[in-house]
């Protein structure tokens, strides 16, 4: 034996353990597999899924034996599907223009199968087709089913996959994984029902509920910032943090999606999923490990510790708003009620602000303010920790401007980065203090472009890593808290507050913070 061979390097060869794979760094290459996309004729497939898969192919992150099978009701040949996907990838892929050699190889693994989501025979046909493709491309039965159809079809699709014998919840090899798009339910009871239906056929370890926010680099960086540095964590608690603000703002209106948005509203569309994930990662305890369950256990604990809003006092903790006509970044925006598909007297919220308490040792007494809205001045998602002031105003006499609190702001999108505000002396003969920002920007420190959220998530699913997917109990815990607000809105007479498009939301939202002596940041 050679001197460099250590005891860990005793090689065991079986059909699953490839010795040449051991230790290959930097590359996480999945096993050969097929991805079946349900709803492959749809918008998400074109704008996100295929472009993400193509980019993974360009970066050699896909295994050599790989197939993508589109499944939908629309009639299409393989060739037509390839042509449509080529156009989509040329428009939306991160690596553009298309590389002809990579595209040709990628396209040779693209197939289309017409079928009806309700019809068992369609699934039998799909199963036969997959077996043929497996043999042709050297795939040993590993499958990912991506449900990119409207949510109403999720239960039937899962049930039929089970009935056709296409999923085996217990088998690791070959694996079967099912990715479920958002929204996962519309309230607590529908989420529970959906979980029951899905878990009646699949095991939790084969269910991948997507929340694409978790695929964003900066959301992951939030964990790195907290748990890979010794500096922040000691300050990350009620002793030093005065309050936390989480903002998820969009500058666009509802863009013709009136039908959908009238049903959903911003609380379902943005807060229950994306902002609650950001909240959970910001507030959670350090996980025991980065394994999927350890991480998700900690997030669930936060969601379970959210203090329920006391009955009859929703107005103190929730502000709902709706945009009037206005101007956003120089562009006219019609009022929400004038959008197509919206009732002229609609009370559906396009803005919501929440005051949340987390009843645990770390956060007792620290309010978390969340806000999310459409038709805001700009698109921005950020978390800001506003720290308590210095215990003594040493420069109170001489300083002409009162010192501002320190703020650690984590910008999730766009222009990802972290900034820390602190007070500095203005050069001169007086003790004037001015807030200055110390900024770290991704763009300037790492020249490389971060992967798209869907690239990361698809790759993680192929690799069997569920850490960035939401678990069933997590979804239910967040719905449990959110659904009480919807109920209150249905039963209480509360009004929706109006705000002009292109502003930071209704005045009532500012008043909610002002009552606590706080103020929204201008992101």
């Amino acid at each position, binding site marked *: 034996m050679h001197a460099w061979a250590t005891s860990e390097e005793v*090689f065991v060869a079986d059909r699953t353990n490839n010795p040449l794979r051991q230790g290959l760094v*930097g590359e996480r290459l999945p096993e050969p597999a097929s991805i079946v996309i349900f709803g492959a004729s749809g918008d998400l497939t074109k704008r996100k899924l295929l472009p993400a898969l193509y980019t993974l192919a360009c970066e050699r992150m896909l295994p050599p034996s790989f197939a993508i099978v589109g499944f939908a009701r629309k009639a299409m040949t393989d060739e037509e599907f390839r042509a449509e996907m080529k156009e989509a990838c040329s428009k939306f892929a991160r690596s553009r223009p298309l590389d002809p*050699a*990579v595209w040709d*190889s990628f396209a040779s693994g693209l197939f289309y199968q017409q079928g009806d989501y309700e019809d068992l025979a369609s699934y039998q046909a799909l199963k036969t087709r997959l077996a043929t493709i497996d043999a042709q491309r050297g*795939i040993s039965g590993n499958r990912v089913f991506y449900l990119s159809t409207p949510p109403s079809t999720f239960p039937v699709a899962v049930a039929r996959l089970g009935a056709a014998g296409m999923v085996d919840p217990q088998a690791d090899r070959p694996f079967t994984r099912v990715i479920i798009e958002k929204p996962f339910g519309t309230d607590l009871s529908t989420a529970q029902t959906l979980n029951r239906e899905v878990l009646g056929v699949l095991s939790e370890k084969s269910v991948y509920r997507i929340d694409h926010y978790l695929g964003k680099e900066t959301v992951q960086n939030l964990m790195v910032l907290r748990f890979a540095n010794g500096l922040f964590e000691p300050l990350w608690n009620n002793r030093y943090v005065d309050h936390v603000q989480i903002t998820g703002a969009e500058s666009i209106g509802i863009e013709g999606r009136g039908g959908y948005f009238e049903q959903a509203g911003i609380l379902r569309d943005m807060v229950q999923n994306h902002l609650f994930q950001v909240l959970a990662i910001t507030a959670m305890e350090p996980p025991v490990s980065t394994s999927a369950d350890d991480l998700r256990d900690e997030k669930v604990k936060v969601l379970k510790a959210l203090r329920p809003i006391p009955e009859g006092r929703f107005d103190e903790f929730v502000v709902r708003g709706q945009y009037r006509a206005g101007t956003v970044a120089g562009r006219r925006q019609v009022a929400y009620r004038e959008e197509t598909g919206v009732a002229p007297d609609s009370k559906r919220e396009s803005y919501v602000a929440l005051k949340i308490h987390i009843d645990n040792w770390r956060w007792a007494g620290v309010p978390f303010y969340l806000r999310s809205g459409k038709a805001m001045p700009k698109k921005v998602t950020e978390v800001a920790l506003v720290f308590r002031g210095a215990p003594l105003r040493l420069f109170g006499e001489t300083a002409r401007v009162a010192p501002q609190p320190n703020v650690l702001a984590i910008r999730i999108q766009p222009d990802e980065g972290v900034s820390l505000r602190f007070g500095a002396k203005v050069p001169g003969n007086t003790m004037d203090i001015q807030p200055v920002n110390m900024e770290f920007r991704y*763009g300037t420190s790492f020249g490389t472009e971060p992967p798209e959220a869907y690239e990361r998530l698809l790759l993680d699913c192929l690799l069997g890593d569920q850490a960035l997917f939401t678990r069933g109990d997590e979804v239910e815990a967040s719905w449990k808290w959110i659904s009480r607000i919807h109920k209150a809105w249905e039963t209480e007479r509360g009004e929706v507050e109006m705000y002009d498009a292109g502003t930071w939301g209704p005045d009532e939202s500012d008043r909610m913070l002002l009552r606590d002596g706080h103020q929204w940041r201008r992101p």
Partner: protein
Amino acid sequence: MTPPPPPPTDEVERFTSGHNVAVDVAAIERDLAALWRKANTGSVSVTRACSWNLVVHTSTDAEFKQAQPLADALVASVPSRTVVLNDRPNATGTEVEAFVTANCKMLPGGGKLVCTEEITIEARGRGGEHLPSLLRALLVPDIPSAVLWSDLPPNNAMVAELLVGVDRVILDSTRASELFRVERLGAQVTSRVADLNWLRSAPLRLIIAAAFDAPSDPAMLFKLRRVSIDAGPDADSSARLLIGWLGARLGWSSPERHTERGARGWTMSRQDRTLQVELRAAERGLTGVTFESDEGVRVRLDVTPSAVTIDTQGTKRSVPFSQRSDADLVVAALGSRGSDKLYQSALHFAVELER
């Protein structure tokens, strides 16, 4: 072709537009700070970004020509303070001269220039002796530093001094006839040695590994009778590193060298049997790898610049393949791939082949 515009006459403009500005060797940092202060008084704000100290050492014109564009391409991905040490022991003239320039790019959205800085020190004759001490004064604190050679570093006292406290040594063993020099260097320094030759072959190693994933049977790798690699003279050291990797992963030992039908070959032990490994002459580059097992199973990989065709017992599939640019490889070398544990064992085995 229109000639490039002449460099601006204003010193600050020259500096921010990527032209060299001569500075006092004894006060490089002070002069640089003054230039930044002046650059910041204009209408656009200037942000300096720096996450690595990148030192490029060159001792010939050819090396300088090769290293300079590499450093330029690199700062686009890794903001760094680049220090180019142009060391000419045989040249005459002023012993040491220093120049500074900034590499700036506008951030998307405009309004903000992000700049990295480059310092060039030209040493002639005995001026080279001052390089390590000048460098020590110029390294930005609290961030790691890397020294880059486009070949193997010269073996001398100045280089040894240069390497003290460096976090990463990046070299390229592609043209090295003797890999033991790399191993010896690795033993001398406390830093990690990243070899662009090794990093360049990473995609191929991945494809080779993937060729034995299910439904193929990876157990075949432990029953190999013969492994042949086709490589041109330009890929000789790459081919030896590849054998080193296979040997280290698959537990081969005691290579004994022989020449058979014009091909260089080794007989090696694997558990209780032997296997033949041969390096067959090709015209250029690494063009193929063949694995044959005791049971007569044959896996052949044909490598072209754009694809690798894997032929397993007559069933063929093609995998797209492309080389990464040298700048990309250096970025990889600065990251986790620059401290690849497999490299050490592969290199060690490859050195055994030279015995």
